[in-house]
């Protein structure tokens, strides 16, 4: 008879499952005192607070709040400069100024839009990794209220003038910073920098559809 064997296999499976679960719980984090840990808990907490009560705010209000969070917590000048890559050097004074202005609006719109579908999620900071570049990688998870697979979000944090600043947000392994750089380079190669500035403005002028209804 095969029933006892199946049962035994099943019991073994159960025991193993509990062992794995117990081990996962034991991997305690020692990085809770890290300033970067606290900093990201703070930044993430602010974003969560903005997204929590969407019924009582318009997208424009949420976007304004994201703008404040990002100007304060992100190294926007560094991000702007990095995303333009080698094209920064070739740009004229006027182009650079125009670009710096428009990029801030653009990146705020991007983050406010892409995170607007979030609502009742829980934001948990998991650990801090010292990157070989000297930056800190703060690993976090966004837990879905429906109980689906958690979303992994890494924040890359760098210190400038004694203040911690986010320089990249990596969602499920996808870096916003590098994706923007590749995208912008592609547009500049085809249309030039003025073409990119025009396209960015067009994106900002387009009507916003909020994910919240």
């Amino acid at each position, binding site marked *: 008879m095969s029933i006892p064997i199946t049962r035994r296999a099943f019991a073994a*499976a159960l025991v*193993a*499952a*509990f062992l*794995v*679960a117990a081990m*996962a*719980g034991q991997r305690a984090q020692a990085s809770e005192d890290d300033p970067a840990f606290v900093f990201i808990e703070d930044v993430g907490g602010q974003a969560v*607070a*903005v997204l929590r009560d969407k019924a009582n*705010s318009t997208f424009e*209000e949420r976007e*304004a*709040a994201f*703008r*404040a*969070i990002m*100007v*304060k917590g992100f190294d926007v*000048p*560094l991000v*702007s*400069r*990095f995303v333009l890559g080698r094209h*920064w050097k070739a740009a004229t004074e006027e182009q*650079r*100024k125009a670009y710096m202005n428009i990029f801030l609006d653009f990146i705020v719109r*991007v983050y406010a*839009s*892409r995170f*607007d579908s979030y609502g009742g999620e829980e934001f948990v900071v998991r650990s801090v*990794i010292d990157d*070989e*570049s000297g*930056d800190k*990688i703060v*690993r976090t998870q966004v837990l879905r209220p*429906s109980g*689906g*697979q958690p979303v992994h979000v*890494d924040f*890359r944090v760098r210190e*400038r003038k004694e203040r911690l600043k986010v320089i990249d947000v990596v969602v*499920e*392994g*996808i*870096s916003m*910073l*590098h*994706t923007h750089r*590749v*995208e912008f*380079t*592609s*547009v500049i190669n085809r249309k030039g920098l003025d073409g*990119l500035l025009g*396209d960015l403005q067009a*994106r900002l002028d387009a009507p916003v*559809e909020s*994910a919240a209804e």
Partner: protein
Amino acid sequence: MTESPSRPPAAHPARAALAALRRCLVIALFAGVLLGWAADGRASDGDSDPLEGYNRVMFEINQTVDGLLLKPAAEFYVLAVPEGVRFRISNVLGNLGEPLNLLNNLAQGKMERAGTSFMRFTVNSTVGVVGIFDVATDWGLERAPEDFGQTLASWGVGGEPYLVLPLLGPSNPRDAVGFGVDWVADPVGHLMPAEGGVARGVLSGVSQRAEHIENLETLERTSVDFYAALRELYKQYRENAIRDGAAGASLEVPDYDFDEELDGYYDEDLDSYLDEDLEKYLEEK
């Protein structure tokens, strides 16, 4: 008359349709892979896209097909099927993929993850009632997804050049071959009747598309080059999958000389007055 188990495979319409679909896909994959390898060996720096001309055309065709067929189907699915049920369906489909995860984990010598896939399939198929409930995740057994594209990567095959496949979308020769091998090798596919295979294929296509309706719309609305954004997204997504979600190798971000290079291009006073704005906003809400 009793049905003979040895009837010819093409006798059934569903079986014939599946065979035809399989043939089309194999041809498309083969053509794509040839194209990809023909172009390989040319420029191969980080953001290279030697097939960009072909890729952009195929991308537009795929976008059109998506707009006419797949996206409407996904939208109908979202309207017709409540979220809770869709969630269960995607659990069942995910569970059917576990044997393939197990095989690919074994092929990569990842014994712990292979064990996880085995346990997940065992637990979810029984306690989780054919995978409807993902009990395993609650027990700390997080998914350990692997496909043959990742297996090839672990054997040293690179992910260049980027290749947009007909209907299947973003890929590269390695992942295209991986997709084909997974399809042929999938133990669940062999055990299922043809109708089940077709239903599973259609349902997983629609279900996966449905999960990304909002994301893709937002991405398209907030990108200046949707094609390039998706290309970069695909590359990084695959690299992340190959690393099993471990923190990535650091991509270099230089430390610019702010006083020299960026002086005068941004307003440092922004910091202080925006602080107050934010505090006010958070207080009000």
